[in-house]
């Protein structure tokens, strides 16, 4: 059963710098189709500016797509009436990248965690308090911490508060938008373990957005690689990790530095950052940075096609 299905989702942003300028249009997400199985974690990797966060926001219902369809447990999120849509929000929660920016500094941790409870569940005050205490313990904090203000927590502890807030209404899917990037290495490992435990215990599904491929490998069951608004590769089973074959995915993997001096790489990669990402009309979005680009790549955009079982690539070479 799919918790969430996104079908051909697109999102454009238009802006102009000066009032006499014509509007510029940026396509952050271009026709992405992804689905997340219940109780699994989908990892989403890509460089900054490739539309990962926008896709995460669309999945969490914060951002509306211009095009496409989002199905939550089989029912459409966009076409259902407003009252129902608000209830659907309960099933989707999000943990943001910047934990200090995503909590009100004037609310205590108890109030922060209690907010979704007050919103969705009709509980009296004592019940709510008991629930907050239980949630704090689930994420590895003390009961007494609910009286503390966000400024009194360290980054790792505050990220735990955010996770508790997301867990509060027992959602089906939690969108994790780079939950580790503002944390220390040893604390990152703690949060990763916590997320893995919660997933097992509550049967949660995650959409895990990150640029740390090793962390994604640890937590995810499926993996999607994004490049400039497109999903360029998708594997439904993380154990097929070695089979990743899109030129961009290969480049991403080869940039991971192993923490073992025995495996030091000779750094031989052609510098290609200067070539501006972007496409000609049509054409593969990666063509201008791709070492293997041919005339066909510049003309027609490749679609996502199945190359082997559970493995989809958008590249003309496969």
């Amino acid at each position: 059963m799919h918790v969430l299905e996104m079908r051909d989702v697109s999102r454009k942003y238009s802006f102009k710098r000066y009032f006499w300028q014509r509007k510029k249009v940026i396509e952050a997400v271009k026709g992405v189709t992804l689905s997340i199985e219940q109780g699994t974690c989908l990892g989403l990797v890509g460089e900054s500016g490739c539309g990962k966060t926008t896709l995460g926001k669309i999945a969490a219902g914060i951002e509306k797509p211009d095009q496409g369809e989002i199905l939550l447990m089989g029912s459409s999120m966009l076409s259902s009436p407003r009252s129902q849509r608000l209830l659907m929000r309960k099933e989707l929660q999000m943990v943001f990248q910047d934990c200090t920016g995503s909590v009100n500094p004037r609310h205590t941790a108890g109030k922060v965690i209690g907010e979704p409870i007050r919103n969705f569940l009709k509980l009296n005050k004592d019940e709510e308090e008991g629930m907050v205490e239980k949630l704090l313990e689930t994420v590895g904090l003390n009961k007494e911490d609910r009286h503390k203000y966000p400024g009194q927590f360290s980054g790792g502890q505050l990220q735990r508060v955010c996770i508790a807030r997301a867990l509060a209404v027992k959602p089906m899917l939690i969108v994790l938008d780079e939950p580790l990037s503002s944390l220390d290495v040893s604390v990152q490992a703690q949060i990763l373990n916590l997320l893995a435990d919660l997933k097992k215990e509550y049967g949660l599904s995650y959409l895990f957005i990150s640029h740390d491929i090793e962390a994604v490998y640890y937590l995810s069951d499926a993996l999607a690689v994004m490049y400039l608004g497109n999903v360029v590769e998708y594997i439904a089973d993380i154990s097929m990790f070695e089979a990743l074959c899109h030129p961009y995915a290969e480049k991403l993997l080869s940039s991971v530095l192993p923490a073992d001096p025995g495996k030091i790489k000779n750094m031989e990669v052609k510098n290609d950052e200067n070539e501006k990402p972007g496409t000609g009309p049509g054409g593969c979005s990666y063509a201008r940075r791709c070492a293997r680009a041919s005339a066909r790549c510049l003309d027609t955009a490749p679609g996502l096609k199945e190359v082997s079982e559970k493995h989809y690539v958008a590249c003309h070479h496969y």
Partner: protein
Amino acid sequence: MIKEKVMDVEGLCVSLLHRQREISVVRDVSFCLEEGKVLGLIGESGCGKSITCLSLLGLLEKDRWKVEGSVRLKGKELPYLNREKIRRLRGSSVAMVMQNPISSFNPLLTVGQHFTETIRTHKEVTRREAGQIAVEMLLKLNLSEPEKVMGQYPFQLSGGMLQRVMIAIALFMCPHVLIADEPTTSLDVTVQYQILKELAELRDHYRTAMLLVSHDLGVIAQMADEVAVMYGGYVVEQAPSREIFCNPMHPYTRGLMKSRPAFTKDRLNVLEGYPPSLMKRSRGCPFYERCRCARKDCLEFDMKETGATGGHSVRCLLYAGEEEVKMDACS
């Protein structure tokens, strides 16, 4: 090849003066940088990495920070008290690459203005000549269209390009020492890879001694010849890179190495707890609270170097005694 000591730091102590209190941030740090070699400095946030870097350049404000210890550059003590002299050294003999490229540039000046300002402080050249030097330097760092970049403002460039510009500014005088404070933390993986590659090439080309600060073990493993691990202001372990990754001795180093997910699905072996707050430091080992093999006398430990064999030094009571320590006893 003759190894030449370029920078020699001995007993560096830095403390913050805060409401009539002295909060020690860096405690008894000693290391030396050799020509063409990279010393990697790892540690969590708040362990004193960045303060160490800033104090080497004499960039800490004198009325708020107390710096003790000796820093010698090519055998000569750095003249921290003479503002003009140290200003001449900064940028020419000792250069620094900062963590966040976007906030290290003045948003109101073009890249070219940044360049010419630095070049004309250190060399007597005309504006035009300075421009030529800058363009050559940018070409060395594989930036395309350097003339165009020179006329652009920092916000018009991407993070990776700005970081390259900063490295170019840092290296045009061929400094003896380059201090790179988390040069790739704010960048994408693929860009990080390119920047590191360029740093490695420049190190080989100019034979610069480099102090590379990072919290990413992968970056350190890739670049460093020698590694120092910092915790709570102390360098708790220091050894050649291969040695420290194959045979980590301090419990903190071991915990750090294990907590990295390295393409496994096995449960991560984490260090419980959080790094200690600066304000709450007491006597004894700062790692005491999180250590799995802590003993009572750890609280009384004066953090002297123990067990230094074959260039591998550790500050841990486990290695103080003569007896063989079983390595797996506390892992």
